[in-house]
Each structure stands twice: as C-alpha cells, then as structure tokens.
C-alpha cells in the first residue's frame, strides 16, 4: 500500500501542467464561477482541447478518447483545478456522449460525436419536469409516434444553459400505459431550433440565469433521433446518471477553494489580527480541510477500484454527498470570511464615475464580489444530479440492503 504516484504519472502531471500553462486562454483568467461568462468563454478552452485530442479524456479511444487511466484523469482534473480552468460543459462530454457511443447507432455516432469532441455543438439536458424533481420517473412529457416523426408535448425545467444550446437530449413518455412509471420512457435527441421549442430563462437566487424552463409544443422530431430502443430510455438515463456522479466530488476544485479561503482570511482583519489567526475561524477551516482529505482518499480508493476493473458503484453516492457538502461549506465559509463586503449586490453597481469603459467593480476587495452569489448558487449541488436524499436512498438499498 502506498500513496505515491508512479514515475510515469509524475511525468504525465508535468506534461499536463506545461500544456495548460502554454495553452489555457489567457483572457479567461481565474474564472471560477463567474456568472458573466458568454458562450464563447465556455467554448474557448474546449476548442483548444479538441485540437489536442484531450477534450473527451474518458471516452474509448476509438471515439477520440485518450486512453488515460482513471489516475491520469484525476491528475488531469487536479491540474485544471490548480489554475481554476473553465472546463468543458458536462452535457455533451460526460452525459450524452457516452450514451450515444454506448447505445446509439452508427449514423448518430457519426452525426453527433465530432461536434461534442470539438466543442462546436452545445448540448442541454431535458430530464427534470415541474413537480417531478428527483422523482424523475414521474415525468409527463409525451412523444407520440406520427409516421416517421415523434410529436413531443410537455414542459421541462432546470434545463441548464439551454438558452445557448444547439441540441438537447430529452426523456419523453412513449408508452403511457406501461406497468411501471420507469417503463415506457424513451431517450430522444432534439435539435433545439425545431419549431415549437421555447426556452425561457429562470432567474435564480444568485442573480444569474443558469437554468431554463423549456416548453415543447407539437415539436416534430424525426424517429432517427431515438437513441437505442423505444421505451428503454430509463436504462440509458440511469447509465448517464452514474457517469454524471463520478467526478462530482470536486476534490481538486475544493482544494483550490480552501487555498483561496486561506488567502482571503489571511488578509481580512479581526481585532487587528488576520482572521486566519482567530481560533474559532481556523477551526472551521481545518475541519473543512480534514473532511476534504478524507474525501480525497475515498475518491482515490474508488479510482483504484475502477482501475482494477470495478465500475463506479453505489460508493459514488458517498462522493456526491460528501463532495457537495464540502463545496457548500467552503462557499459558506468564504462568504463568512469576506465579512460585510459580501453584502453589496455587485451586478447592479455602476462603474466608477469618470472611469468610463472600466468594468472593474468599485466596492470592496475583488475576492468579495462573488462570495455571496457563489454561496447562493452552490446550494444547488445537494439538489441536482439526484438529491442527496436520493443518494442516501441508493446507499440504503445497494449497500445496507434495507
């Protein structure tokens, strides 16, 4: 038993670090979780990675993957986190891509995989519906066969960044009379420019427009866009969710976040001393760091299992629960650290008078500007991807056997 990386892995880290240093788009800077990013910002790094052949590291090599081991992929994500790089969106790369190359036909692979690899096509996920939430199987959107088309009607919600999307993958009910709610659901690819698709952004508590309501009214989709078999969509949806959950721990990002928190609390003052030397505050930071160390080793243990050929099992639910709790506590502590400069509503503050053209915020230190909105935004993590309560149900069933 040992924790050291092999010489090959150390060399790999070096290679990755150099590549990121030389190629990460400078204008993106330390983007983190800024809400003011444009579609081009998201796509910029993806394009560079696509050219290098590193945009879909986890895919099988025949579809353009890298053939990296799980450990190499972990190193890759750590190195990206080190510079807080804006990573390719998961909807194409981690979600619909694997479904298409696993269950799709040759035409679908040829049509969709290149755009996902290059970052040219922007995807969104049409799973959730109003009133369904984590009870995904209760979805009501219908797809009715009409000749060589499906006619889709219904309403989806929480469709992340759908306002920019070219394509979406949607779960629709194709057999309303199925015996169980999980049966009779199909997995359909939808061109978001099809008539009858309407996307309405939802303003969230952090002030951003990250998600949307998606209304589908008599949307006609060619039957070729069905993935796999009709009425078997639940199988593909579950497969996709398991993929979504691996990597959800966000250890590398949180490690970077704790470093940043220490910097902030080192410059914020309390009673004439840096906040970081206050025992009450330091205790909370150390607790976070200790929990993060435990999560990191737990993730490495899971990775080692994966490397030995075990797929991501129900243990990944632990990673989701602990990872999101830690992300939330981190953003909460960061907000606490910035003190009263967490209060201004930064998006609404005009530029400094006489400094026309500047986009610098005038109030408080830089690091305070996103503290509140990030904290607000991160409350989503224990809700999405199957709420943490659902994760506990999974562990109850699959591990405790209750």
């Amino acid at each position, binding site marked *: *038993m*040992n*924790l*050291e*990386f*092999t010489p090959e*892995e150390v060399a790999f880290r070096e290679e990755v670090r150099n590549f990121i240093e030389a190629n990460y788009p400078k204008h993106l800077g330390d983007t983190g979780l800024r809400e003011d990013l444009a579609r081009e910002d998201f796509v910029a790094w993806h394009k560079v990675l696509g050219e290098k052949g590193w945009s879909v590291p986890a895919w099988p090599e025949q579809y353009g993957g890298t053939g990296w081991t799980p*450990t190499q992929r972990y190193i890759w994500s750590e190195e990206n986190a080190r510079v807080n790089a804006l990573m390719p969106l998961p909807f194409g790369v981690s979600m619909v891509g694997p479904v298409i190359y696993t269950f799709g036909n040759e035409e679908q692979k040829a049509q969709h995989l290149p755009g996902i690899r290059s970052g040219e096509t922007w995807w969104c996920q049409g799973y959730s519906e109003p009133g369904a939430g984590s009870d995904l199987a209760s979805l009501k959107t219908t797809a009715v066969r009409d000749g060589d088309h499906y006619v889709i009607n219904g309403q989806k919600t929480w469709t992340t960044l759908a306002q920019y999307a070219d394509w979406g993958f949607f779960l629709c009910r194709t057999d309303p009379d199925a015996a169980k709610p999980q049966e009779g659901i199909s997995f359909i690819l939808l061109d978001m420019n099809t008539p009858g698709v309407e996307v309405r952004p939802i303003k969230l508590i952090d002030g951003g427009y990250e998600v949307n309501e998606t209304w589908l009214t008599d949307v006609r989709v060619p039957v070729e866009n069905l993935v796999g078999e009709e009425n078997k969509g639940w199988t593909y949806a579950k497969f996709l969710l398991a993929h979504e959950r691996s990597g959800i721990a966000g250890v590398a990002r949180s490690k970077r976040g704790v470093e940043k928190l*220490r910097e902030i609390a080192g410059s914020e003052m309390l009673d004439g001393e840096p906040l970081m030397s206050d*025992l009450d505050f*330091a*205790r909370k*930071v*150390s*607790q976070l*760091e*200790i*929990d993060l*160390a*435990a*999560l*990191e*080793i*737990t993730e*490495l*243990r899971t990775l*080692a299992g994966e490397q030995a050929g075990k797929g991501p099992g129900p*243990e990944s639910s*632990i990673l989701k*629960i*602990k990872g999101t709790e830690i992300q939330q506590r981190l953003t909460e502590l960061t907000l606490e650290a910035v003190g009263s400069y967490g209060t201004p509503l930064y998006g609404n503050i005009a530029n400094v008078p006489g400094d026309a053209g500047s986009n610098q915020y005038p109030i408080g230190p830089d690091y305070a500007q996103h503290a509140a909105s990030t904290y607000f935004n991160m409350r989503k993590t224990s809700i999405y991807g199957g709420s943490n*309560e659902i994760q*506990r*149900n999974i*562990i*109850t069933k699959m*591990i*405790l*056997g*209750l």
Partner: protein
Amino acid sequence: MDFNFTEEQDMVRDGLTRMVRENYDWDTRRGVVASEAGWRPEVWAQLAELGILGMPFSEDDGGFGGGAVDSMVVMEEFGKGLVVEPFVPTVVCAGGFLKHAGTAAQKEEHIGAIVDGSRVFAFAYAEPRGRYDYANLETTAKKSGGDYVLNGHKSVVIGAPWASHLIVTARTSGERTDKQGISVFVVDKSADGVVTRDYPTVDGRHASEVYFENVSVPAEALIGEEGNALPLIERVTDEAIAAQCAEACGAMKVAHTMTVEYSRQRKQFGVPIGKFQVLQHRMVDMYTEYEQSVSLTYLATLRLDADERTRKLAVSAAKVRLGQAAHHIGQEAIQIHGGMGMTDELAIGAYFKRLTIFDSEFGNVDHHMKRHIALS
C-alpha cells in the same frame, strides 16, 4: 498509488479473523473482562506464536520485517473483536521507542522478549495535571552517580497491571512545560519504589496509577538522547494513534453492521424499523463516516514515515475525524437499538464504550484540531 494489501497481509488478516472469532465471542469477552486478571496470557502467547507480536520489527531486530500497514491490519481485526490484550502499549509504543532509538543492547534485551511474548509493556506518559501535553511533566529523573532516580505520578497507564516493564517519560532538566529536558526510560515494574494502584476501565481494559518513589534505574535504562526525547515521543505516539485509528475503524464497522442487522429484525408499527427512511438515512450517514474514517486511517498510516509536518498533519486529521466519527457512530448505534442499546447484555454497548474512550487517548478532537491548525 496502491490501496491493495499484500498476500501476506491478507493471510495475517484471515488468521486473526479466525483467532478473534474463536477467542472473542461476546460471552467469553464479558467473562474475561469481568475476571480479576482482565486478560488472557494464553491469548498473548497465541499471538506470539502466530508471529503477530513480531510483525512490525525488522528482521535484524528479530522481527518479521513488516511495518505500519501490518499493524493497521492487526488493529482493525482487534477492533472488530474488542480485543483487550496490550498490542499498542507493548508492540507499538515500547517497540517503537526501542526500534527508533534503542541501543543495540536495549534491542537485544527487549525486542526478542516482546516478539516471543515473554515481556509485556505499558507506556506511562500521562500525568494528572498534564492532560494531552507530553511536555507537561512533573515526574523527574535526577542523575545520581551513574543512575537516574525517578519520582512522580503517572495516571491511567493502560495495561500496566499486566505489564512486566514500563516505558516512562520524565523530566531530566528544565521547567514543567519546557520542550527540552525530557527523557524516556525503560523501567522494570518490580523495581524498588514502583507502586501501582490497579483498576478496570469503562471500556473493558485494565489500567493503573503508577507512583515512582525514589526509583533508581541504571544509565542503560535511558532510551535515546537525554533531554531531547519530545520528537521521539511524538513520533511513537503518532504511530500509536494510527494503530488505534485502525482499531476504531474495526469497532465502527461492527457497531454499524450490528445496528443495520438490528433494524432489520426489530419491528415497530408492524414493520421492521429499518424500513423507516429517517433511520435509513441515519445509518447511511454512519456508513459514510466509517468510510471517511478508513480513508484517513490509510492516510495517517502511510504518512508515518514522511517528514514531521506531513506526518503530524495526517495523524491529527485522522484523530480529529475519527474522534468525531467514533462519537457519532457510537451514539447513533445506541439510539437506533433503543432501550436494548442501554442494556449491559448486548454487545453494542461495549462497542459504544470503547469508541467513546478512543477519543481521549493520545489527545482528543480539540487537542488535535489545535495541532492541525498550528501546522496549517
């Protein structure tokens, strides 16, 4: 990166699992713990025979060339059975001092006797007013001719009633809390002036208050450098913490499994209580705490030979997290067992008590949190 155990380690685990099953069923343990001796020398002899007591020593020292991971394997199995025999005081603590700082003569005299089971040690470091500070010492060792003369009072010395020898920390110079001036001695418990008051502990072990009244020991009793033992004490106690974390993992695992089993059988309102989601999620949280504890135990164990800061950070992280998890899992196990969890008859209470005491050994959550903060 490698989280696999070697074939030998797997074999040791299998052997211990059998041994614990044969010797440590619940009724037998209760009887032993309640007996006057409080332990079984024959089990100790069996451990020696299986090679367990010699595992972490190098082959040069008469051992089997294992290391901290081997001790982790052993202690996890001990934790599952709530084994009381003094592996940590004898093999990890006394063995650690001898291994890291003993002279050839000291190794020769003591390690072989530890390996063959003929010599049992206790580690007398804590004092009534010192709490968890190894440097806060009132016990003194004054040089007198070629000898040292020990005076003082050591508290809650685990396993001392069973021990033939003691490892004792004492001040050879300086003021009460100075980091310098601390030395470590090996003392024959039957030496003149060693007075003990023995008693059982709440978690089924036995301990002593140990008083030194002008106890004279020869210069050869000094382990390591005179006056500069604090780094050595910290290293050995870090090794002891890692071993006890593994023990706690074993105990947590069993406490959790017992609780899940119980919730399957106990019915209320016509259904097994394990069907209630509010209890399911609490048992999931226990399980999560256990898995995180295993991870930090690995981390601490694998960092024992790293540089001092890295080692201390990993050990303190483990001690903090496991102290919290031990309380959490112990308390939840009792709660979910309901009134039955309060009875002395059920094993779950014994696991709860051992997990409770685990926190206060070698520094509790608050102590190690402060050490972690100071190093961060």
